[in-house]
């Protein structure tokens, strides 16, 4: 779905059009889930975060400026929410649990989702997600992630190679 179409649906949702919001969810939830998964590493926290993100989108749809980049707006909400949750978890964690590793399900069950989490760093997962699911060009990803375009291109290529090799081993 194009950024323009996403922007249009957000604007319609802001006017109370629930059908438009449902369509927005159908078209973007997969990309939001994959993006949030790079922060939370497990399905259950990611699932919760997806619902919260869309709650925020619905509540704040009126604040979205029409004809601006709807895709970027959604991802910014998702990223801010993820960082808020992670910061709060670290702050709230009792002292004796300070060194505990957060629950993650990165043991590979052969799915692409699990293999990605196992073999790619968070940064690589995000680059692949933004490019494959969200359609961002490498130079746009470079701006989002504040790194040179060449770095994004080479990280993306390496990530795909690692993923393909790991998926072959799993078969």
């Amino acid at each position, binding site marked *: 779905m194009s950024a323009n179409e996403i922007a249009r649906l957000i604007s319609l949702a802001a006017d109370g059009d629930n059908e438009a919001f449902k369509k927005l969810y159908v078209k973007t939830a*997969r990309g939001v889930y994959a993006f949030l998964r790079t922060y939370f590493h497990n399905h259950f926290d990611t699932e919760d975060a997806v619902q919260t993100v869309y*709650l925020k989108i*619905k509540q704040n749809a009126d*604040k979205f400026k029409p004809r601006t980049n709807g895709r970027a707006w959604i991802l910014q909400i998702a990223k801010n929410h993820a960082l808020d949750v992670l910061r709060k978890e670290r702050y709230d964690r009792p002292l004796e649990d300070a060194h505990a590793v957060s629950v993650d399900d990165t043991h590979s069950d052969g799915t692409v989702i699990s293999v990605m989490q196992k073999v790619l760093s968070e940064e690589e997962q995000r680059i692949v997600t933004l490019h494959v699911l969200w359609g961002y*060009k*490498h130079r746009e990803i470079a701006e989002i992630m504040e790194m040179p375009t060449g770095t994004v*291109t080479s990280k993306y290529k390496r990530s795909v190679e690692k993923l393909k090799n790991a998926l072959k081993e799993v078969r």
Partner: protein
Amino acid sequence: MNWKNKWKKELNSVVPKLSDTVLNTPTEKVEIKSERVKSRRKFISFGALSFAAVLVLTLVVGFYLLQPPTVPETVFAVEINPAAAFVLDKNDKVKSVTAINSDADVILSSEENLNEIIGKSANQAVEKFVDSAAKYGYIDLSDITGQTTLAAVRISSCGAKNFESLRASVESFLSGKGIPSVVFTQKVEEIEFCDIIGIEKEQGVKLVDTVKNSPVLYAEKNIDENNITEKFHAYGNELLARISDEHLKKSIEEYLQTEIFNISQYVENIKGLLDIEKNSRIEHLGKYLQFEILNKDNEISKDKLDEKHREILDQNGSFNDFWNDRKNNGKK
């Protein structure tokens, strides 16, 4: 199924359904508060205001009357694999270039490449694009028979502009690099152009604006594997189909992923290329056959031969005889 499609399918199965609580949450309306801003007023005489208004009006009208008639922007697509859509401004300089597939994205992600495309003439920009495609390995400069394959380039446009000189320029450029090529141009209607570049034209939005404002213009294409073999065997030459299946299937998959041609057009192109090989360079096809059936120690791998030819090999012990026999008996 490639990993991207598999990933998307998995995500579809784990993404939670939209809850009613979220759906029914009301949007918080933003109130626009206007504030009075006190400002100093300057008192200007009515006469001075009138004069100023007339002067400004004259300048504005004169400016527009003196402008040369505007030439609309033009959009065209160049498909090799990779594939990209170019927008030319009124001076025929490239204003924007957008990837139609992910392979073009790799080329256009390079700032250096972009600098040699944006602001250049169509000829310069497309030559740079084609040159980059060759350097990045997208134009296959030699196949396993040792022969140079034809590079195929399609230039599509909608609108009145003629791209014949661009076609000639690209052919000449590739020829200068030692790459034989087929470059053809076509003028298409907007609907077909949108189909080529993979977009849905928005009502009331100019095509040029859609291309310029879209970050990417591609989506994953699905490969119908059943269709590949069936269409290829329709060519009727079982021998060529048998030995070429794996090699050509991979090529067909790559073509289909970028959808440069539909399957029928692709098979027609392959038939044409194979006819050229059949008629004039049959020995190279033999080398390809040799490649397919020789094992890593360069011995003929008998289990890959059919029974008839196994017998011939056993009798003759010579690959040349074996190949001649296939030449005489295998072709229809």
